[in-house]
């Protein structure tokens, strides 16, 4: 994989457009998945994912061959998500006030609530657990969320994460521990400590 990436990068640096399309095809889902959980699964996530690939394309010549393409893309994505979160924090403060005005005016707000009447119990449970997980991830501080997403969902190693977030290895370990502990606290109604660990299917 890494060798194929190196060849793709070399072709890109020689201005081969098809090679960059190959990189996009290979990494778009992973990068989008990460970005969507960092900023929330909305239209911004797709725009930001595109931004990641545009920045990678523009800075293709500054890519260091000793780093992996995977790590490099996640590093760009992390920086873009952090910038986005900083910008939207200010906007969020304004939108909260508008929402309150809506509620005070007594207007009925239309909400999309799925009809779960005919769904099997297991699917319902999985969906509920999935929603709870997304909420729990969203509530995590940004620094903890970055580490747990990169490790437990994207499958990156400790040292790769240390390189992406530019922190010592010990910081990665402690953040991962804290993130998992916080998630466990929020998912505790769905956990059973006395039973052996269960592996959920995707």
């Amino acid at each position: 994989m890494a060798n194929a990436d190196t060849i793709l990068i070399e072709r890109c640096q020689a201005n081969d457009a098809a090679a960059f399309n190959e990189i996009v095809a290979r990494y778009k889902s992973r990068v989008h998945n990460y970005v969507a959980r960092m900023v929330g699964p909305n239209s911004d996530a797709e725009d930001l994912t595109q931004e990641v690939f545009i920045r990678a394309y523009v800075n293709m010549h500054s890519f260091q061959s000793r780093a992996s393409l995977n790590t490099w893309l996640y590093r760009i994505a992390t920086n873009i998500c952090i910038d986005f979160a900083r910008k939207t924090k200010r906007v969020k403060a304004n939108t909260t006030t508008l929402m309150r005005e809506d509620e005070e005016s007594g207007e009925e707000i239309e909400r999309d609530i799925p009809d779960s009447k005919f769904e099997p119990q297991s699917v319902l449970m999985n969906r509920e657990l999935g929603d709870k997980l997304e909420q729990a991830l969203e509530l995590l501080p940004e620094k903890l969320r970055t580490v747990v997403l990169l490790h437990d969902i994207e499958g990156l190693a400790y040292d790769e994460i240390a390189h992406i977030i530019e922190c010592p290895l010990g910081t990665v370990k402690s953040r991962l521990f804290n993130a998992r502990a916080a998630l466990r606290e929020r998912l505790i109604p769905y956990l059973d400590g006395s039973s052996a660990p269960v592996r959920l299917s995707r």
Partner: protein
Amino acid sequence: MNCKQANGLISEYIDNQLSARDTWELDRHFGECNPCQNLLNEMRQTVNIVAAAPEFKLSDDFASKLSARLALVQPAPPRNAWLSNLREAFRPGLRPAWVAGLGTCAIVAIMLVPTLMPNRPVDPRQVTQTKKAIERVVQFENVSNAVSDPFGDTAAASMVTTNSAESAANATNPEPIW
């Protein structure tokens, strides 16, 4: 290993990142301690739930939209290799290593500098001056000894002898005080 130590290592234990010895000690602890075993199971389940989180789907026109945006930009020209190497060497992740390295160098320098100082050639004039200074000090000491030492003075010595003879006589014929 106690419960607090075990809990601190639980995350690395789940990821198989511990040394064989730590793993063995934790295995033993979890075998003996039910609360810690429960915590381990809950943490493992949490990790499994996170890992099983569903993927978000990209819209079908993602690639075409991206191609349209890419057509408007150009790759930046390559930067100087030495500049990027320098940036890489001083990236924040390597700061602890730099601090540790510089600290070690400072300690080594403090220890080695006095031993590595070259021996300066001795100036003969300085030697004679020092000799003269020592002689002056010795002379001064002799004089001061002579002044403070009554045994060096013959008159004083004779006085000491007379006094001691009188006191010996007094000792043999004690006179009544009254």
